[in-house]
């Protein structure tokens, strides 16, 4: 078993979900190799105990996209029995491209590694869990980050190889600009508390004022239903559900969210679900550990008030 983890840097830092992918890799082998792609400015190289070798490809942010990265590393992929990347927008863009160029199949959004060749993943908006058996000599997996804990053991030193391999620019793709929301806010993927709002908030002002403040009081992250995102109350990266993010915080507070199956698919692994909704028949209550039937415009300000007084 030879396991490779591919990760990237974001704004000069290591992608924070690397530790989750390492714990997934740990299910397959004690140690793995890591390919880290992108410039490091604020972080040093990762020194987790389970890493054999780190190969660092310090390519510029403007070149760190699938058209350039896939050919850069695809000739190394077949040396491994398993290749794991996060099922985030970087991994989902990159790994299938590599798979296509090597004519390999891929198992997406793996939530559990049952054995070296059997993987569990959700299908039909998370309503059904499928066990997939792969016969490929090299198994390509994207990993659902929220289902694996962070790997934390550190080692004294790391085997580090910086690769200054010539990166050939490909003019067929050019990154024009990127607007990544404030990195100082709590990361929704690793947050212990998520406060999510739905279309019942009625406006962006209400959303920011009520959901934002409640999340701030609880040191949590802000989430949103698809309806809220489409109404422009929240940005797309906050969207939780089948087509957005899949999260599993300790506490998930759903405010004014009715609970369509697509939304449930994104949050049902949360440890404790608290739902606040004015409609007693809202399906979200079926999944909630604590439910409150009430008008969010009275309940939430009261809650914020009580929390800020403590």
């Amino acid at each position, binding site marked *: 078993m030879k396991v490779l983890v591919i990760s990237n840097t974001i704004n000069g830092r290591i992608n924070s979900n690397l530790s989750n992918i390492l714990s997934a890799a740990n299910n397959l082998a004690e140690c793995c190799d890591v390919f880290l792609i992108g410039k490091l400015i604020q972080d040093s190289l990762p020194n987790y105990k389970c890493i054999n070798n780190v190969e660092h490809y310090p390519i510029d942010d403007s070149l760190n996209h*699938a058209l350039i990265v896939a050919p850069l590393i695809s000739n190394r992929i077949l040396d491994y029995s398993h290749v794991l990347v996060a099922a985030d927008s970087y991994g989902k863009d990159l790994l*299938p491209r590599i*798979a296509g*160029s090597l*004519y*390999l199949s891929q198992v997406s959004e793996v939530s559990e590694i049952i054995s070296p060749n059997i993987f569990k993943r959700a299908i039909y*908006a998370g309503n059904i869990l499928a066990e997939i058996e792969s016969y490929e000599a090299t198994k390509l997996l994207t990993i659902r980050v929220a289902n694996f804990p962070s790997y934390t053991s550190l080692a004294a030193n790391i085997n580090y190889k910086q690769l200054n391999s010539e990166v050939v620019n490909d003019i*067929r*793709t050019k990154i024009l600009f990127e*607007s990544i929301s404030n990195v100082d806010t709590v990361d929704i993927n690793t947050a212990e508390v998520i406060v999510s709002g739905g279309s019942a908030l009625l406006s962006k002002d209400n959303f920011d004022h009520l959901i934002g403040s409640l999340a701030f009081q609880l040191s949590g992250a802000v989430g949103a239903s698809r309806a809220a995102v489409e109404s422009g109350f929240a940005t797309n990266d906050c969207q939780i559900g089948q087509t957005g993010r899949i999260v599993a915080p300790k506490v998930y507070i759903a405010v004014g969210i009715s609970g369509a199956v697509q939304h449930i698919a994104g949050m049902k692994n949360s440890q404790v679900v608290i739902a606040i909704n004015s409609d007693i028949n809202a399906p979200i209550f079926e999944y909630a550990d604590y439910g409150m039937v009430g008008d969010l415009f009275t309940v939430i300000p009261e809650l914020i008030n009580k929390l800020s007084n403590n």
Partner: protein
Amino acid sequence: MKILVCVKRVVDSNVRVRVMQDNSDVDIALSKMSLNPFDENAIEEAIRLKELGLTQEVVAISIGGDKCEDTLRTALARGCDRGILVETLVSHEPINIAKILTSVVKLEQPDLVLLGKQAIDDDSNQVAQMLAGKLNLPQATFASKLRLSDNKLEVTREVDGGIQNILVSLPAIVSVDLSINEPRFIKLPQLMQVKKR
């Protein structure tokens, strides 16, 4: 300029899918089937480019059993000019779909291939990227906005934490997000008309 739109026939998003008693597969034999919602957005985007006069022909392709003809007719009713059905007896993994599409792209020589970013049955999110990798063409995944001019396509992508704008040269492969547009409502007469085509 020609656009190829890839469409998949899937279980309707309102159907609650059940598992067979022996847990061997999902039981969808009697389920209502529909056009994959993400592919509806891909068709809509292609049709809008055509209405703007930026493309001359929009060709829809579907891979699967003979029932996929319905899916293609829906695509025609939405404004596609032509439909291609690649008939298969079994359902295929994304990598094989990408392989079939590679051959179709080589035959049809489209300037732009539009796909939904994922199908709502297996939620794999693979085919567009695999196709781009196999053909060694530029890719733009999770697109929420397209602007086409001078053989270049500016794409706004939905990425973690925000958005990214990229410029890709054509031919290119683009997978679209639901946020890219609001697919139009098709009227029954339009749907009836294409039965004859």
